[in-house]
């Protein structure tokens, strides 16, 4: 995958432009920040006693840890125009999702010109932002992980029947493939930027960074093993998107992943249905510790 593909822009008439950032609540900001640099290899991008920002690509930042004892996670997408942001707010209002306009100090904290925040039907916090800051300085990784940038986010859903239409109808996302009732959603040429996974709770399941290739995935797998990090899935390969992945846990439990080789879809792609089973989440046969990816299920059949 080229770096250009990470910057792939949606069509001019698309609602969502790009995945923008992820905000994660952590009880111990120092431990989370150490993880972000020493394990993820991200570059510190400012912060204070309550927040730590990290850069992974052309974005000014793509990950923000927020110090809190509450469970908190939030993902953000960018829209191209203020009119689009107003349209989105009106559509969300009509659905009864009660969108909130970002106050100036909240916009400043997020490094965006304007944003609208809402919770989806499961309670996942989402922010739609306009004019997020981009850095003119290239990303310089803290560790040689081969990171190319923020690629996609996997989200838990307790109300998948309502959440999928929210993304497809209000935000113009298209379903690339389905695993059980879960779905991979695309907003540009990449197989997906967002995936929804049926679960008994809400929250971000995994934050995925693209890396250069299989060498970087496997090197990180041995590195994480040696550093006694908790690998929760992989190394493995996703049947639907073709990604080679490695999912691992940060202190506090948030899962991150490195990924390479996500397919780009062409116009003639037709949505495929996979069964909800461990084998539909890894074709190498790796067992996940996450129930959403088929934990504790016997693989068999190989």
């Amino acid at each position, binding site marked *: 995958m080229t770096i250009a593909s990470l910057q792939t822009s949606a069509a001019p008439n698309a609602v969502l432009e790009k995945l923008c950032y992820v905000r994660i609540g952590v009880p111990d900001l120092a431990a989370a920040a150490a993880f972000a640099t020493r394990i993820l290899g991200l570059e510190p991008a400012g912060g204070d006693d309550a927040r730590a920002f990290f850069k992974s690509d052309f974005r000014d930042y793509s990950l923000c840890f927020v110090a809190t004892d509450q469970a908190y996670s939030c993902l953000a997408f960018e829209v191209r125009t203020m009119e689009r942001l107003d349209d989105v707010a009106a559509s969300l209002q009509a659905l009864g999702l009660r969108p909130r306009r970002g106050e100036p100090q909240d916009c400043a904290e997020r490094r965006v010109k304007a944003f609208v925040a809402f919770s989806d039907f499961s309670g996942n916090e989402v922010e739609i932002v306009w004019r997020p800051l981009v850095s003119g300085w290239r990303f310089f990784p803290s560790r040689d992980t081969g990171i190319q940038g923020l690629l996609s986010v996997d989200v838990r859903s307790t109300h998948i029947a309502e959440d999928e239409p929210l993304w497809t109808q209000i935000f113009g996302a298209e379903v690339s493939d389905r695993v059980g009732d879960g779905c991979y959603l695309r907003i540009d040429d990449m197989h997906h930027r967002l995936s929804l996974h049926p679960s008994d709770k809400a929250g971000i399941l995994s934050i995925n960074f693209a890396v250069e290739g*299989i*060498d970087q995935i*496997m*090197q990180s*797998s*041995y*590195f994480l093993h*040696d550093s006694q990090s908790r690998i929760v899935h992989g*190394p*493995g*390969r996703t049947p639907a998107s073709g990604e*080679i992945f490695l999912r691992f846990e940060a202190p506090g439990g948030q899962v991150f992943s490195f990924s390479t080789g996500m397919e780009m879809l062409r116009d003639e792609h037709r949505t495929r249905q996979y069964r909800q089973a461990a084998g539909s989440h890894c*074709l*190498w*046969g*790796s067992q996940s510790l996450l129930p959403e990816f088929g934990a504790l299920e016997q*693989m068999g059949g*190989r």
Partner: protein
Amino acid sequence: MIELENIQYCRLGTQDLEAAEIFATRVLGLEVSARERNAIYLKSDHRDHTLCYFEGSPEDQCTAFELQDEHTLDAAADILEKQGRPVRFGTADECESRRVKRFVEFFDPSGNKIELVCRPLMSGIRYHGMRDAGIDGFSHVGLYSSNPARDEAFWTTICNARVSDRIGDAPLLRIDELHHTLAVLPGKKPGIHHINHQVGSTDDVQRSNRFLVEQQVPIVFGPGRHPASSAQFLYFSGPDRLTFEYSVGVMHINDEPIYRERQLAPTPKGLCHWGALPNFPA
């Protein structure tokens, strides 16, 4: 000079033919080509067989290379005799048991039994493994050596092998474009260090890794990637503690006149650039 055309088969003695068959078919993924009273023949590609287990001592192992024809076989026997290396022509029964027209047996300077064969049998039926291991075919062996520098000289001056790279003093030797068909590795006594089968893809290496772990087959080394040949690999333990390897993506050397061998360290980093640690039998 003895022109080795091809690596043809390995023959391995074992005290437990049944266990060897179970491993070779259900774990390694080969296909039974023929089952005889004291031997089992296993197929990995278009050839009649590329591995044979026979009832005998596990220390009785041999590796066979194909020569062009009967004329070159006779010439090879002369060359070896002149080098003071005794040869023995196989009897009719032995030729039949190896599915070859004729062969000579000799021992390399470390004492590894080598057979040079001509007209080995091909198979008209394609290989269909017992499990979907994705095997493309038998590809190379590693042989233990009591003196790798001496053995390198034998394989490169008496035979047509060229050094592709060295890991410590151990040469990786090619006889065609493939990075290596023979690896000469330091060891206390003669024998086969490992037997390699090429597989079709990264997915095959990684799926087999999970399969072998589930089957409680000891993983000896990997999954990893060799800095020398660029191949992704997985080594695991077979009957009589002999190591088998799957690999994919081995480098081809197409610019023979300008290719220059490289020196790698005999350390984990010289053997794997993903970070896997080797655990070969002592």
